[in-house]
């Protein structure tokens, strides 16, 4: 799996930034911005809030770069800061906005022609998965994105979200169940999906 912008180049920039070179940090920002923005968008469920979260994250990263020991990849370190900023931002945002987002959810509906044997294209799955993620309750979305998309360990997720590892695992379990029932329902699960939608709307 090809991931993260050229790690060697980043390592040089990180070393220079840690030594106090602000231009090297700027270069780090430009090299990693799209990645951080992508994560923030997945976590926040929309692009509008993602830019604010990313900016907040880079400000924190800039202040903390001297403490980055280099024993993890810079991008992994940055992702954890983005996750922490997203959790903080969502915590501030409150109930009203949450409801608005859930009601704005438009999941492409292919229940009508659903066929378990059908080989849907990857692109089709991806669009539906993104919509379903955006429609999850925030607490569940943060955990499933960090674990199943970004491969962060439970321990790191719990630390950045300020929850216990057990809570992180419980949320992951619930998130997977909701997503699976919503995206790949088996026969007889349609009613359950509708109940899930109601639950999501009422979960503010």
């Amino acid at each position, binding site marked *: *799996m*090809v*991931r993260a*912008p050229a790690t060697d180049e980043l390592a040089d920039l990180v070393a220079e930034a840690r030594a*106090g070179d*602000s*231009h090297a*940090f*700027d*270069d780090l*920002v*430009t*090299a990693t*911005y*799209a*990645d951080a*923005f*992508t994560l923030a*968008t*997945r976590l926040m469920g929309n*692009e509008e809030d993602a*830019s604010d979260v*990313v*900016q907040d994250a*880079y*400000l924190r990263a*800039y*202040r903390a770069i001297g403490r980055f020991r280099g024993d993890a990849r810079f991008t992994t370190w940055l992702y954890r800061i983005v996750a922490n900023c997203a959790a903080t931002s969502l915590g501030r945002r409150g109930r009203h906005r949450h409801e608005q987002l859930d009601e704005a959810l438009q999941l492409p509906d292919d229940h009508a022609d659903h066929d*378990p044997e059908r080989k849907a294209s*990857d692109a089709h*799955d*991806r669009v539906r*998965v*993104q919509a379903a993620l955006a429609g999850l309750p925030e607490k569940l979305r943060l955990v*499933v994105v960090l674990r*199943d*998309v*970004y*491969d962060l360990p439970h321990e790191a997720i719990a630390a950045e979200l300020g929850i216990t590892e057990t809570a992180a695992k419980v949320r*992951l*379990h619930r998130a*997977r*169940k909701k*997503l*699976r029932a919503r*995206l*790949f*329902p*088996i*026969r*007889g699960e349609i009613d359950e999906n509708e109940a899930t939608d109601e639950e999501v709307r009422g979960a503010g």
Partner: protein
Amino acid sequence: MRAEAVADLGHAGRRIDGITCAEVAELLPAAVDGGVERRRLDRRVSRHVEQCLRCQAELAGYRRLLRALHDLRTEVLLPPPGAVAGCLAALAGAGERRAGAALLSGHRGAYVGGLAVAATAAGAGAALVLATRKRRAG
């Protein structure tokens, strides 16, 4: 057994080898993690899944979900125009404050980038982001 399984599709309370579909359903979300988690599916659960089309379909759904989530990782979203520049400008602003504090305390080497510097860097940044995306797309 297979015929019975088909007839019972949707009956979450059905018991095979002493374990019900509802009980199996609670174990399946973790069963797709692989490694240790996969081995947690004990023999009883495995035998249930082998004989139960409903649970097979559910397990296949989880596997497909995990694949789809993992595939999202390869996609990079294009930030809105000006997002990188705005971020660099904010950093420069924060840096100037730090620089001021550093000068007062007699230290050098703090962040002294200005808005103009940030704007220039942002132009280069946009190109860099596009180049990164191209590399990944290939």
